[in-house]
């Protein structure tokens, strides 16, 4: 007896599992059952699992019967003429949506030539075994598998033209590549997902060459003149918002330029960009820390006794530009929230010209950061005067075996010279021989190599250099998002130790293991200095060993225990230790400090 489960629930048993599964599938195909039904007969576990619920990943496959795919030329013609649609094919049971478990029962042929009597389905296209991003990698069948994964992952991090209405949108964070291009070497997936309308990269001339050593460890040497012409230039947009909130007791926020007597008033300069309504107008240069929307709020805790009318009773809650960011105010949006509160959104636009350390990648998982921006006149050139936009280190190729990228160089060259896109769809793209032949016809060496001349001396280079065109992607990891240093800066309220994190202008922690390292080297003084970030000098009563208190009225520092001031001495210690002592005291432990002169 075989158990039958519907959506994971036991519903019955059957003596004829194969027949049951076949019947479910047939009913699905003829429309008696919805097409969401997927059934699987698991021989090992002796059960049938039928799933109809949501959340399953399914993919379309063409059915095969008696060694012949049900999808014929006739259907294709009809679709081309608009007589048939995709949904018709599904309804007629020519194409089925198969989920992960049903696929286990099937034998799927990748292409038509491979169909045998045993096959039940055929792929619509062999590249369908890949996801969208992975099938955007050109010539992936020539690459090592992991490189495709890396390449596919990095496609998701590229800057491009994500939406044509970006000037109207108020995304919290977005990037727009200034001069996006569609790839010369492309896959059918690109067309299918309409990526041509949203390109995310640029075709650049790449030379495989070591040059001054600045492309060591996967770094890239980028032609500075190309950058000046707009290569990889992008804009970063960030939208800040301010809401005029209402509080209990009829109080509300106030959007406008704050008065000087508001608690937490910033410098007058910080508000200088605001127009009368308290909001920055568009196209104004803004620096980090500047106020975008001036706002004040009522105090959080209203004191019981002193209720003074006027602005002293408000606190400053303006929206300011994040630390380390800046730019130009791009657009200002005035609206209302669902609750009817006034809402201000200000979008800031920041130009991002490629700089040292910005990250780039090809679609083959070959990533690197800019190591040198070199003027065009110093770069090597060909007899035609072509200089590379990017110089890639040849050491990055052998160990990673990205043969697909080398093919892309060839194909890109063919594409650029012939003015046509080159098809590099997985498993069905152009073949190497054809590309070589075309290159030869175009008057170039078939191996893609060219004679280069040294840009500074004009001498001919001894070796021919592999040079061609590759589609380069600018990735969202840019130094300007990450650069961070601090010598002095904000500290946390409780411990008086430096704040943590770039956004808070924080320090870099000298952690426990680093501390051990200093001790191991015997560098006591350095260690003390490093840990002095929260150092305080406290008056201590020598007799009682507790912290003395300063009495401003009497102008003396007095021990709270013996109430005398003659034994009080200043002692340096970390504020964290003072906190520990305070906590011990709060738990009725009396930590007494025995103080002596150190000399």
């Amino acid at each position, binding site marked *: 007896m075989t158990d039958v489960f519907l959506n994971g629930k036991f519903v019955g048993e059957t003596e004829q599992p194969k027949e049951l599964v076949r019947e479910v599938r047939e009913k699905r195909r003829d429309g008696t059952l919805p097409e969401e039904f997927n059934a699987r007969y698991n021989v090992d576990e002796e059960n049938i699992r039928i799933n109809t619920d949501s959340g399953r990943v399914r993919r379309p496959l063409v059915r095969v019967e008696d060694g012949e795919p049900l999808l014929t030329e006739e259907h294709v013609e009809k679709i081309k003429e608009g007589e048939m649609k995709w949904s018709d094919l599904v309804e007629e049971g020519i194409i089925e949506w198969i989920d992960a478990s049903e696929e286990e029962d099937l034998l799927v042929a990748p292409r038509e030539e491979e169909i045998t009597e045993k096959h039940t389905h055929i792929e619509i296209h062999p590249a369908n075994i890949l996801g969208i991003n992975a099938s955007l990698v050109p010539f992936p069948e020539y690459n090592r598998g992991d490189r495709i994964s890396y390449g596919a992952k990095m496609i998701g991090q590229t800057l491009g033209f994500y939406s044509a209405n970006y000037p109207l949108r108020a995304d919290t964070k977005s990037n727009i590549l200034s001069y996006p291009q569609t790839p010369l070497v492309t896959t059918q997936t690109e067309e299918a997902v309409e990526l041509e309308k949203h390109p995310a990269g640029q075709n650049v001339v790449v030379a495989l060459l070591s040059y001054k050593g600045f492309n060591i460890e996967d770094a890239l040497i980028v032609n500075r003149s190309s950058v000046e012409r707009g290569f990889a230039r992008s804009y970063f947009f960030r939208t800040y918002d301010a809401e005029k909130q209402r509080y209990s007791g009829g109080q509300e926020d106030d959007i406008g330029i704050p008065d000087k007597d508001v608690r937490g008033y910033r410098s007058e300069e910080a508000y200088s960009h605001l127009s009368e309504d308290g909001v920055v107008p568009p196209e104004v240069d803004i620096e980090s820390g500047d106020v975008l929307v001036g706002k004040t709020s009522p105090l959080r805790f209203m004191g019981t006794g002193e209720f003074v009318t006027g602005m002293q009773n408000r606190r400053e809650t303006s929206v300011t530009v994040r630390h380390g960011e800046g730019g130009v105010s791009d657009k200002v949006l005035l609206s209302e929230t669902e609750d009817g509160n006034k809402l201000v959104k200000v979008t800031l636009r920041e130009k991002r010209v490629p700089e040292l350390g910005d990250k780039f990648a090809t679609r083959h998982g070959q990533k690197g950061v800019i190591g040198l921006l070199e003027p065009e006149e110093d770069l090597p050139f060909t007899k035609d005067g072509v200089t590379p936009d990017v110089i890639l280190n040849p050491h990055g190729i052998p160990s990673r075996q990205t043969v697909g990228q080398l093919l892309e160089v060839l194909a890109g060259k063919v594409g650029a010279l012939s003015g046509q896109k080159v098809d590099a769809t997985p498993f069905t793209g152009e073949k190497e021989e054809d590309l070589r032949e075309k290159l030869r016809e175009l008057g170039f060496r078939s191996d893609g190599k060219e004679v280069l001349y040294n840009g500074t001396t004009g001498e001919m280079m001894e070796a021919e250099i592999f040079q061609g065109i590759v589609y380069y992607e600018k990735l969202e990891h840019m130094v300007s998002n990450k650069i961070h240093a601090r010598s002095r800066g904000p500290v946390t309220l409780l411990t008086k130790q430096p704040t943590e994190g770039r956004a808070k202008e924080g320090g870099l922690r000298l952690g426990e293991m680093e501390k051990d390292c200093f001790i191991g080297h*015997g560098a*006591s003084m350095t260690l003390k200095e490093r840990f002095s970030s929260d150092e305080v000098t406290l008056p201590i009563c020598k007799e009682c060993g507790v912290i003395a208190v300063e009495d401003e009225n009497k102008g003396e520092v007095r021990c709270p225990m013996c109430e005398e001031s003659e034994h009080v001495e200043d002692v340096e210690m970390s504020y964290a230790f003072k906190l520990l002592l305070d906590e011990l005291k709060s738990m009725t432990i009396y930590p007494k400090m025995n103080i002596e002169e150190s000399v």
Partner: protein
Amino acid sequence: MDYEEKVDEMCEELPEKVRSRLVDRMEDEDLSEAEAEELIENTKEAYDKCKFEPGEAIGVVSAQSISEPATQMTMRTYHVAGSAQGVEITQGLPRLIEIVDARKTIKTPSMDVYLKDDYQTEEGAREVANEIRETKMLDVVTEDRIDLLNLVVEFDLDTDSLDNIGLSEEEVISNLNKGRRKYEAESEDGMVKIVPKEDDISVRDLQKMKNKVMDKHLKGIKGISQAVVTETDGEWSIQTLGTNLKKVLKVEGVDPTRTVSGDPREMQKVFGIEACRNTILKEGHETIMEQGLDVDVRHMMLVADTMTVDGEIKAIGRYGVAGEKGSVLARASFEVTVRHLTEASIKGEVDELNSTVENVIINQTVPVGTGMYEVSYNPQTE
């Protein structure tokens, strides 16, 4: 010329090993007197440079030198094929932790049994191994039956393994008939027959009796489940799984001067604390080296010494070395903070701030390296 005399005269302070190597090397090179003197001077200088200076934080250096490679062990250990012939002994990080924690019970206790010269053959080693390995009834039985008609238990003996172990059927019977028991063992047609003394025994009791007999000790030393004979560099020795050092030492043919257990606690019980220190040192160092990591012995020596200074084994950790630190703050900063603080406040402990951790907490110079010295001079106070 006599190099040895020269070396002894010029550098007495150097350790024996360095001196003898120096002499050997000088003899190989056949140096002149002036050259020899220069070499000795240079050696002295180089030796001095290798020494730790006062104030060097050797504890931290040792800790780092052992634990940094140990972090690599975590990733690579676990599935190492067992060593020689099926004796699988805990290795890698779990073993290192076991040693350093001074565990009372070790996961896979084992011994290295060395043999006297008379037993330095494969047969001799096997003979001793058979004396050591514990043989139970179940090891020599091929089949067991309960005769329900006559209410007796019958065992078929495995004559091959009996021969290997060096037991005869008579010995099996006599061993089964030792001590208090509720049955009488007899031999019958190459079978061992267990006849209950009680006439009216239930089948269930018979079953119980059968299991008892199966577990009966026939030969060897209790607690040693395996003893594997190995030959290394022409010397035969026995590696065991399970330990009983005290009894093994008394076995004929065992060399009691070299035979050791891998369990530091057992070594301490049998040979004393110095042997225990050496076991920690040897086992710890070997565990690290077996993983292909290179750690200087001296680091492990320091660990072994701190674990055994007061004549008892102390673990490195909360219940040992770290828990016995002199400073309240140092103890509190390492695990179970609250307990140490409450206990210190009840006893009224005083923290002298003599060591590193305490001083890091209050941000004073740590008495290590440049912070060792307390002389200070303030130029402003004339």
